[in-house]
């Protein structure tokens, strides 16, 4: 279980997060939707401590931490409970596909090289890239890179995987393979928070959809509730714009 309470984050004069709270149960897939600048990505980055939130509380399973006062050690411990899939994949450019997965296992999880290699092989198989173990990121397509990114996150066996617009940087014809991999993870009961602009995808895999705007959660509910029976005017407007665009 992961719980975020009243999280605040400001960049200079700009308050990006204005105290939203969100709780995700084990096995749940929460999709966060909303316009650019609504704070979706910042929320994910704060959970992974890539940004330091100014205020608020984070609980993952039995461990809690106060964003304002978290020590380096606490941050490291919380970070180990989460894993991130980045919009632009962020694979280590000087490492092969399998080495990308092994780095975290060896240097954070303290596995032996051998164990890490075996886990890496297994996970590359799982995302359908068993043949590409020795390829460098530059030698892989965007979709393949993102699947390695997903395998790297899965390998850490985190309580929750945070996916930040995992298909936004992909060519349209490569989106499908990545979405399928994520759907597979959802079926297997992996807890996930996904920031996405793919509405059909959110609708299909999310157990809950959260609509964010202006640093707060405007509305949340099941996909049906948000996409068909939404109550808030802002949600309606946003979804209308999105539908026209598609």
């Amino acid at each position, binding site marked *: 279980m992961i719980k975020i309470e009243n999280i605040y984050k400001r960049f200079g004069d700009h308050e990006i997060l204005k105290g939203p709270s969100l709780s995700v149960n084990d096995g749940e897939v929460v999709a966060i939707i909303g316009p650019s600048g609504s704070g979706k990505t910042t929320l994910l980055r704060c959970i*992974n401590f890539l940004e330091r939130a100014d205020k608020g509380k984070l609980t993952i399973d039995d461990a809690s931490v106060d964003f304002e006062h978290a020590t380096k050690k606490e941050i490291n411990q919380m*970070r180990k409970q989460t894993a991130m899939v980045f919009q632009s994949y*962020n694979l280590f450019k000087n490492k092969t596909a399998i080495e990308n997965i092994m780095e975290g296992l060896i240097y954070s999880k303290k596995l032996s090289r051998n164990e890490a290699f075996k886990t890496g092989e297994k996970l590359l198989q799982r995302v359908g890239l068993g043949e590409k173990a020795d390829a460098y990121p530059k030698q892989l397509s965007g979709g393949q890179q993102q699947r390695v990114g997903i395998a790297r996150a899965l390998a850490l066996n985190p309580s929750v995987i945070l996916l930040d617009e995992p298909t936004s940087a992909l060519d349209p014809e490569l989106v499908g393979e990545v979405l399928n991999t994520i759907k597979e993870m959802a079926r297997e009961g992996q807890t996930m928070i996904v920031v996405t602009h793919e509405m059909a995808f959110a609708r299909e895999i999310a157990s809950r959809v959260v609509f964010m705007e202006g640093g707060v959660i405007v509305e949340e509910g099941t996909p049906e509730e948000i996409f068909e029976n939404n109550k808030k005017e802002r949600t309606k407007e946003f979804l209308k714009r999105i539908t026209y665009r598609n």
Partner: protein
Amino acid sequence: MQNSAFSIHFVVNSLVTLLHYVPITLLITALSICLGLVLGLFVTIGQLVPNRVLNGLSIGFIALMRGTPMLLLLLLIYYGLPLLLQSFAIDISGWNQVVFAILALSINISAYFSETMRSAYSAISADQYEAGLSVGMSNKRIISRIIVPQATAIALPNIGNSMISIIKHSSLVYAIGITDIYQQAQTVASSTFGMRQLEVFVAVALIYWMICILVERIIAVIEGRFSYLR
């Protein structure tokens, strides 16, 4: 006298004589490059750490070194450093000229190395660092396993350029009385009363070309090993 015609024979003769002085040139440049890399690394760190005093010192050092002609720096160090240290009761006047040459060359090249290293470091996007954090790696590991290898690949071509320029700069050490290829060439040339000056200089040029081409090839091979990054 038919001596006025260009003599290939004399070029070859000079080449053989001068080749004996290649080791001293190579020794001076190799040690200068090694010391320059270490020094350059410290200057780079001085530029990157969040400390205004160190930042200022590093930037000042680079500006000063790049603004000092190599020959002048060599003379300043050879004549000035012993005097300076004497006032602290340290006597280095007995040191070999080669030591002063290496000091001067390495200080000069470290400024260029440092600029190259800093820009290579800046060229690595924050993504790579964040990816390391997100998989739970420590700062130290991210730097040693992810940032430094990538920055090295980016820095290589410019490091190579600086190496080549320091090889050529090493010809200036004759000014403080070291007999290297260039100094010996002067000697050989004057032993012909200037009649065979051109032949000797062609021989010197051939030697510098060979050394520089060799170094270029080595750098190119190393660069090739990083091709998967591009």
